[in-house]
C-alpha cells in the first residue's frame, strides 16, 4: 500500500507502527479480561502445538499397568498424573492431544463460519432488495433448525470423521455471523465515505471489500471469539454422542462420554476432560468479552 521511496522513509512508518502498537497495549491494560483470556488461549495453543513434547505417554496406548487388578481405571498417581481411563490409557496425555482436536475444530470451523457469514451478510446488506430477502431467508432457515440436531444429521449422512465434523459445524454455524455483518453493512453503507467512494467511481467489489469491510471487522472479531467457544462445545457434544471424533483418537467430548461409564467409581475420568473444556471455553469467552468492551467507545471513557 505505502510507497517507501518518497519523502517518508521506511523507518518513519516503522516508528508510527510501533507507537500505534504501544498505544494499543496501553489501552488493553485497562481490560484485564483480554489479558487473562489471551493467556489461557495462548497456553492452550502451546499445548496443542507441542503436544508430542508435553504428553508423558502415548495417548492411545492401553497400558498393562494402567488398570487395577480388577480392571478398573487407576486414580491419579505419579506415573499417571490425571489417572487412567477404562482402557488403561493415560488421561493427561489424552487431554493434551484432545486440545489439538478441540482447538483445530473450534478455530477452523469458525474461519469457515466467518467466510460464509461475511460473504452472505455483505451481499445481503449491500445489495438489499430481493438479494437481501433471499439470503436472509436462507439464514433464518439455518438459524431456525436446532444446530446440534442438524450437525448430527449431516455427520450421520457423511459419516463420522474429523473432517466431516469440522465441515458440518463450519457449514451450519454462520447464521448469526451473517446477521451481524448485514446489520453493520446496512449502517455503514449509508456513511458519507461510502458515498464518496461511489462518487469516485469505485466498483461494487471495491466498495464492499475495501471501504466497508474494514469497518465491519470490530464486532465480527468479537463474535468470532465467542463463536470459537460454541464450536468447541459443538464438537464436544457431537463426540459425546458418538458421532464426532472416533476412538481411539482423543477428543474432550469422547473422553467425557467414556468417563460417564466409569464415573461412579473413577470420577477423575470425567473431571479432567471436563475441566479442560471449561477452561478453553472460559478463555475464548473472556477474550471475546474483553475485545467487546475494548472496542465499545463508551467503555473507553476515562481510559484515554
Amino acid at each position, binding site marked *: 500500500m505505502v510507497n517507501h521511496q*518518497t519523502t517518508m522513509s521506511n523507518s518513519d*512508518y516503522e516508528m508510527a507502527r510501533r507507537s500505534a502498537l504501544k498505544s494499543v497495549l496501553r489501552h488493553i491494560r485497562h481490560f484485564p479480561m483480554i489479558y487473562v483470556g489471551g493467556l489461557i488461549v495462548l497456553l492452550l495453543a502451546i499445548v496443542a502445538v507441542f503436544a508430542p513434547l508435553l504428553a508423558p505417554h502415548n495417548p492411545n496406548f492401553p497400558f498393562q499397568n494402567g488398570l487395577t487388578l480388577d480392571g478398573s481405571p487407576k486414580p491419579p498417581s505419579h506415573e499417571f498424573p490425571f489417572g487412567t481411563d477404562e482402557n488403561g490409557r493415560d488421561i493427561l496425555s489424552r487431554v493434551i492431544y484432545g486440545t489439538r482436536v478441540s482447538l483445530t475444530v473450534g478455530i477452523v470451523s469458525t474461519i469457515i463460519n466467518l467466510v460464509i457469514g461475511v460473504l452472505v451478510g455483505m451481499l445481503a446488506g449491500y445489495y438489499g432488495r430481493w438479494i437481501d430477502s433471499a439470503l436472509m431467508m436462507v439464514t433464518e432457515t439455518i438459524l431456525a433448525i436446532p444446530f446440534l440436531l442438524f450437525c448430527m444429521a449431516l455427520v450421520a449422512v457423511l459419516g463420522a470423521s474429523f473432517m466431516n465434523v469440522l465441515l458440518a459445524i463450519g457449514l451450519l454455524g454462520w447464521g448469526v455471523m451473517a446477521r451481524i455483518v448485514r446489520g453493520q453493512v446496512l449502517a455503514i453503507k449509508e456513511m458519507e*465515505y461510502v458515498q*464518496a*467512494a461511489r462518487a469516485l*467511481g469505485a466498483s461494487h467489489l471495491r466498495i464492499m471489500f475495501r471501504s466497508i469491510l474494514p469497518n465491519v471487522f470490530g464486532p465480527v472479531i468479537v463474535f468470532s471469539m465467542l463463536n470459537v467457544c460454541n464450536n468447541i462445545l459443538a464438537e464436544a457434544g457431537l463426540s459425546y454422542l458418538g458421532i464426532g471424533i472416533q476412538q481411539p483418537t482423543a477428543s474432550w467430548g469422547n473422553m467425557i462420554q467414556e468417563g460417564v461409564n466409569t464415573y461412579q467409581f473413577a470420577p477423575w475420568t470425567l473431571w479432567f476432560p471436563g475441566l479442560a473444556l471449561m477452561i478453553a471455553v472460559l478463555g475464548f469467552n473472556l477474550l471475546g468479552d474483553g475485545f467487546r468492551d475494548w472496542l465499545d467507545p463508551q467503555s473507553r471513557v476515562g481510559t484515554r
Partner: protein
Amino acid sequence: MSDPVLQVNSLATHFPIRRGVLRRTVGHVRAVDGISFSVKRGETLGVVGESGCGKTTMGRSVLRLIEPTGGDVFYNGRNILNFSKSELRNLRREMQIVFQDPFASLNPRYRIYQTLSEPLIIHNLCSPSERMERVQSLLARVGLDPDDARRFPHEFSGGQRQRIGIARALAVNPKLLVLDEPVAALDVSVQSQVLNLLVDLQKELGLTYIFVAHDLSVVRHISHRIMVLYLGRMAEIADADELFENPLHPYTEALLSAIPMPDPDARRERIILSGDVPNPANPPKGCVFHTRCPLAQDVCKSRVPEWNEVSPNHFVACHLRA
C-alpha cells in the same frame, strides 16, 4: 451567453413510500420535483432553502448518486441520465462532490494516503511510484502538510478534514464540483478559511461549483447566481446581488429577513414564517408556498404559478410578483 457546462431540465427525484406486508407503493415523497437550471463554466450556482427542501437530493441526483426519476441532465451537451456504467465511471472524473459532514466523509480506517490515492487507483491516473508524490501535492494544494499523508482522520480537526475531503474530490481533476453544505458543520472562523480556499481553487483550476447551503450569507460570499428552493421546487433564481437587493418571491424575502445584521441598531422588518414545511409526500395544491405565504391570495391556492423572467436573468415563480 457562454456555454453552459450543466443543463438540467425538469429534474425529478421521487422516493416511493412502501407500506404493508406486500410493500406496495402507497405514494411518493417528491424530494425534487421539476427543477430546471443551467450552470456556466467557471460559475458558482448557490442553492438555498430550508432543511428538507430537496437541496441535498438535488445535488446528488445531478451526479446520479441518487437515481433521478425524471428529467434530463446534460453535461457538455450529453444527457448523463442515459449513460452506461462505463460512461458514468468516466464521468466521475469530471464531476465530484464534497460532503457536509467532515467526520463521516473520511473512512476512519484509512490513512489519508489511502483516502487520497483511492481515486488515483480507481481511474488509473498515475503509476504506483508516483502516488505518494501526487497525494502530497494534493495536500499542499489544500493547505495541509504533505507529511499528514500517514495520519488517520481522527487526528485532524473538522476544518482540516474538510480540506482533505476537498483534496479527494480534486484528485481526479474534475471540472464540476457539487459542494453539499461544505462549511455547515464547521466553526465560523474555519468556515471562512475553507470558503476562501474554494474561491482560490475555482480561480486557479477554472472549476464550476454547485454550492448547496442553508446559510445565505455564506452563499452570497461565494455565488455568482443563487437558486432558492422550496419543497423540491424552484421559487426564484437570480444573480447573487440582484437576489439580495431585489428579492421577489415572498419566501426569499422571509429567508433574507432572517439573516442577522451586524449593526445592532439597524431596524428591519422580520418576516417570520408560521408553521412547518408541508409534507412533500402530499404537497399543497396551487403554489406550494401558499400555506405559509403572508401574501397568499385565492389564486395561489388553485393555480400553480408560472416561471416568469421578471427582469433579465431573474426568474420567479409567484402569481403576485410576476
